């Protein structure tokens, strides 16, 4: 690492000299004398270009990529000079990638000798590096960032200890670059503003609880009204909106009885999948004489406001196993569940967590306490120290409520309501030294840095420790930032990073919207879906928290399973619903590409799609998303395809047609390599009547016959994968797209990763240390933007 730094310093000064000697990069340059230690860093000459690069371009590439044919939309006429490497960087990067991967030249065109290709590739690469080192460091600029729905909910949770689910109330956030935390795309509309106003009212009321409770109401969900769902004979489920935080009496209706010697059964009651209470229920006949045997169980629970899914179930109930559906709902033969009734709200006996958090002194003790309460809440909500004037303007709301003959607590509630609609709460805004001068690069303040960190790792507000360090100006002290990252990753709030970053990177969030065909996949259901989600999330968290190398994503021989998912995978010896780490002992599974969540979101509802899966790998693993198909995709020739060919035979057309083949050669091969997994990720060796053929040959000539062999080959692309992941994570961390000027940052992070054997936390640490994460600059005036 030391020598790398030294050579970098050398290169910078050498490049600086060159630049000084040759201010115009467009002109041919003099080759720098480069010591053997750093052979990659020099500026090529036009003569070198003509001897190393041009022959391949003109002899191999340009017969197709010329102004007449422009195959694939590419005419290389503008690329035949050394200046183009700097001017057409994106184009050259693509050329290099196609040549290195062996995708170009395509089959049928003679390949130049490997040594020549290698020399060309090195030359162009060196030019890139030369150029990158001469670029003035530019941290870019992050736009004022409106909290998205996740961030809003988490921030409310952490600031006020109130459970509010913005995703059920607010319109969905738009996303850009595959993520929903991109400042530029997070807009605000009157509908959303209205929601903010309503939410602030409700949240403040719930947090302080100063308003009188409404009269208790009863709501019943009953089988006979078809208002409950029955996922199976031992379970009933209802979606109920709790209108008010409070205590509720919940009654579970249990008609029927079993035989006199029947054992009690365990009844569980869940809210949104979380177990709230469990108790034993008698099932044998009661001594009472009923025409229709019936009993109910009454629970007393504190329920939070909002829409919830409630579920009551007899668990591990062997009694029903032998019963027909008819008998299962016969009150003579069975005791079963048929209704859920909610009565409430009643005043809570225990003090709410939110009150404890907010009312840090007795508000009735006088104005100084009220001021303290308001100032503390505002600081947390605004994520920064607040001024006296700001507190004073909030205290006006307390006075206003009291003038309306309301209580002090109701006054605090009103002030809180105002805080929650304020732009200081709803937006993360960073200040510039000079907002209109792009050359004014400066470090963001530590307070701003604290929020960047917490929204990156927690999707939430900085906690007292982090904000305290920033306020004291200690966050950038040696070692502090690293220690904070470490602490934050260990905190359970870091689960938000797994669900928000990984859920969008790997697209597993889409599991909520995919709908595998129930005819073809009757086993698909919420339990399986949730298990799939849990596997990928826990796997990601493990790689993160255990600081595993990135290669684990491609070939880890372990994963996380419960009984449901293990059965799905055909893995024996996993009992019980809780997830645990499982060592993978066969070649069938290993790495994320063999995880059911990934395989399901990259399939059609009825079948697998090698094209979608191939695109998925290119886009999310290798970082080389294919261009979309041309709009005038020619229809497949029906007669040639017929309805009897396997999918592979049908898609063979893709590769027979030269235009399609240029992309599909790689895409389809990657997809076929995963054909051993069906559309919900089960292992298979047959697709209908056709045997699975999961073999393939990459454009570079390397071939495989099983998914395990394919991921082994993909491991050879670890640098590409690492770069892809870095780009995605930098996008997510900054809340903006990766731009040209970020290239150096990406290169530097990757160099560190390589040096550190691709450890995952190194990636996070390096992003946090990077120039764009630590700094910002003024904005480029609009006129220049328009020209861009």
């Amino acid at each position: 690492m030391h020598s790398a730094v030294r050579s970098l310093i050398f290169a910078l000064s050498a490049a600086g000299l060159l630049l000084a000697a040759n201010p115009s990069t467009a002109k041919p340059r003099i080759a720098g004398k480069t010591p053997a230690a750093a052979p990659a860093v020099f500026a090529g000459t036009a003569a070198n270009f003509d001897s190393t690069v041009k022959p391949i371009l003109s002899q191999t590439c340009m017969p197709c990529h010329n102004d007449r044919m422009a195959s694939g939309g590419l005419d290389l006429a503008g690329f035949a000079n050394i200046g183009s490497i700097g001017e057409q960087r994106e184009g050259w990067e693509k050329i290099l990638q196609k040549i290195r991967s062996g995708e170009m030249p395509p089959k049928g065109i003679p390949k130049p000798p490997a040594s020549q290709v290698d020399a060309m590739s090195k030359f162009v690469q060196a030019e890139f590096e030369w150029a990158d080192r001469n670029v003035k460091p530019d941290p870019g600029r992050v736009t004022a960032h409106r909290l998205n729905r996740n961030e809003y909910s988490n921030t409310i949770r952490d600031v006020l200890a109130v459970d509010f689910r913005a995703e059920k109330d607010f319109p969905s956030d738009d996303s850009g670059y595959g993520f929903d935390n991109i400042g530029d795309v997070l807009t605000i509309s009157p509908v959303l503003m209205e929601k903010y106003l309503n939410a602030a009212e409700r949240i403040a009321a719930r947090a302080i609880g100063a308003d009188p409770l409404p009269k208790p109401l009863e709501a019943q969900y009953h089988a006979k009204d078809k208002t409950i769902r029955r996922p199976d004979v031992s379970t009933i489920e209802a979606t109920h909106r709790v209108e008010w935080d409070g205590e509720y009496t919940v009654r579970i209706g249990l008609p029927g009885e079993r035989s006199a010697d029947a054992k009690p059964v365990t009844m569980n009651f869940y809210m949104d999948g979380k177990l709230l209470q469990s108790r034993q229920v008698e099932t044998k006949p009661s001594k009472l004489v009923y025409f229709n045997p019936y009993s109910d169980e009454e629970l007393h629970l504190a329920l939070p406001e909002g829409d919830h899914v409630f579920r009551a179930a007899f668990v591990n109930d062997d009694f029903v196993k032998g019963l027909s559906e008819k008998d299962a709902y016969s009150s003579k033969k069975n005791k079963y569940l048929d209704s859920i009734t909610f009565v409430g709200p009643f005043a809570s006996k225990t003090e709410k967590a939110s009150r404890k958090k907010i009312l840090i002194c007795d508000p009735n003790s006088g104005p100084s306490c009220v001021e303290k309460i308001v100032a503390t809440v505002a600081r947390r909500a605004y994520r920064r120290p607040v001024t006296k004037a700001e507190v004073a303007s909030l205290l006006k709301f307390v006075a206003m409520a009291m003038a309306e003959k309301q209580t002090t607590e109701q006054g605090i509630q009103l002030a809180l309501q105002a805080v929650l609609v304020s732009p200081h709460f709803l937006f993360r805004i960073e200040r510039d030294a000079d907002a209109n001068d792009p050359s004014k690069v400066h470090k963001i303040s530590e307070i701003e840095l604290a929020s960047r960190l917490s929204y990156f790792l927690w999707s939430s507000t900085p906690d007292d420790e982090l904000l305290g360090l920033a306020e004291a100006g200690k966050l950038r002290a040696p070692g502090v930032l690293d220690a904070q990252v470490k602490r934050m990753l260990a905190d359970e709030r870091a689960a938000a990073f797994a669900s928000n970053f990984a859920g969008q990177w790997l697209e597993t969030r889409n599991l909520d919207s995919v709908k595998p065909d129930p005819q073809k996949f009757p086993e698909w259901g919420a339990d399986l879906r949730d298990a799939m989600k849990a596997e990928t999330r826990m796997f990601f968290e493990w790689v993160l928290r255990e600081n595993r190398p990135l290669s684990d994503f491609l070939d880890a021989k372990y994963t996380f399973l419960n009984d449901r998912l293990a059965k799905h995978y055909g893995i024996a010896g996993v009992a019980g619903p809780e997830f645990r780490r499982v060592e993978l002992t066969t070649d069938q599974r290993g790495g994320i590409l063999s995880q059911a969540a990934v395989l399901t979101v990259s399939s059609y509802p009825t079948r697998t799609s090698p094209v979608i899966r191939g695109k998925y790998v290119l886009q999310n693993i290798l970082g080389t998303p294919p261009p979309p198909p041309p709009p005038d995709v020619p229809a497949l020739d029906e007669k040639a395809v017929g309805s009897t060919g396997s999918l592979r035979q049908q898609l063979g057309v893709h590769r027979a047609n030269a235009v399609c083949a240029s992309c599909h050669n790689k895409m389809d091969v990657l997809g076929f390599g995963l054909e051993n997994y069906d559309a919900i990720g089960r292992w298979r060796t047959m697709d209908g009547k056709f045997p699975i053929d999961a073999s393939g040959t990459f454009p570079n000539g390397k071939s495989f016959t099983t998914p395990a062999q394919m991921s082994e080959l993909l491991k050879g692309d670890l640098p590409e994968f690492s770069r892809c992941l870095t780009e995605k994570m930098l996008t997510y961390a900054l809340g903006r797209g990766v731009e040209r000027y970020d290239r150096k940052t990406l290169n530097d992070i990757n160099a560190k990763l390589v040096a550190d054997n691709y450890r995952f936390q190194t990636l996070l640490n390096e992003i946090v240390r990077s120039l764009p994460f630590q700094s910002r600059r003024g904005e480029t005036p609009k006129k220049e933007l328009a020209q861009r």
Partner: protein
Amino acid sequence: MITGKALARRTFLRGIGTTIALPFLDAMTPAMAATTAKAPVRMGFVYVPNGMDVRNWNLDYEGKLGELSRIMKPLEPFKDDILVLGNLTHNNGRALLDGPGDHGRCCGAYLTGMQPRKTMVDIKAGISCDQIVANHIGNKTRFPSLELGLEDARQAGDCDSGYSCAYTNNLAWRSETQPLPPVLDPRALFERLFGNGVALSPEARALQSKYRRSILDFVTGDTKKLETNLGPTDKRKLEEYLSSVREIERQLEKAEKDNAQIDPKMPKPYGVPADFAEHFKLMTDMLTIALQADLTRVFTFLVTREGTSRAYRELGIPDGHHPLTHHQNKPELMEKVSQINTYHVKQFAGWIEKLKSIQEGDGSLFDNSMIVYGAGLTDGNKHNHEDLPTVLVGHGGNNFIKTGRRIVYRKETPMSNLFLSMMDRMDVHSENFGDSTGRLDGLDLS
């Protein structure tokens, strides 16, 4: 550009109608009973994605409507109340020089008439025609416009070939950079229109309103202070915020003035129905009440998103809609596309029936409306943008639109021409809109 100038000859301004009482409104909002008003004209857009199976959409004749095509069949009972328009085109939905991404582009262009910027970030299309109208007449109603939809936004992945999801998640654009997200959840729509279902006493409502106004004053002040020393993009974000605040203030004022809570006479819905038809009906039922009670006169309805892969199990179709439209001319796949297209029209027809059943003066709510039902792509397999499937229903008030016909325009006639004419009918007169080349002839047989 909007001008107040008198219009060219072939425009709508002719007789908006005599004074018509609104019997239903009278019953519902006593405050309004005293004043008799002209029935307002309502304008709306219902958008269906992924083009159509044009084989089963197109008609092979012009003039008076006879036998309808298979997909239009559900509209048969209303044949005399619709206009089928041919050859309307959105040139700005085409690639021009922007490469692939027809789904993203066509939806962004649909009501804006502009070519959306190909970007995942600094989104830009144009102000949509419904919003131009809402800006001008919106102050007359509680809500300048309503935006509805049935499908939740896609959460992850890219939306279409480098086009931000904002282009496919939204239909209405308040400004060229500010799309308006549709409300999807029936409960959210209910609460927006009719309050949260808890009947507040007039005093409690007045106090709530007072508090809300002071809070909005407070945040306006905060924002103005905050805005100093910000760069143009950040400023724009805060301007969006401020203009939303102002809009809410206006709504509050309006609600205070009307001083009436509308009783929708329906229970507050909970959650999103799993059944598509039920969801469609629930949303349009509430929209109907909103139109009837004059809570708004302008709406957009994004049935499902452009590029959607929703599977129509209701029809026994397990495949995603979008993959199906790339049917490679396989008859069994095209058949399914036709079924989905027809299913959408059927839901729409059900709503038309409802609108027709609501009396308003001498006619019906339907008679005083003009609603475009259309797709942003022509054929989902070909991704083309000419001869977009378009039906205009309703009479636009006072029997203005002469329906019951199919009109085929000259090839490449801009869709924007239709929208410009509709804007006229809403009394919002502009020299042009989007890529319009003029006004659309023949709607009123002049």
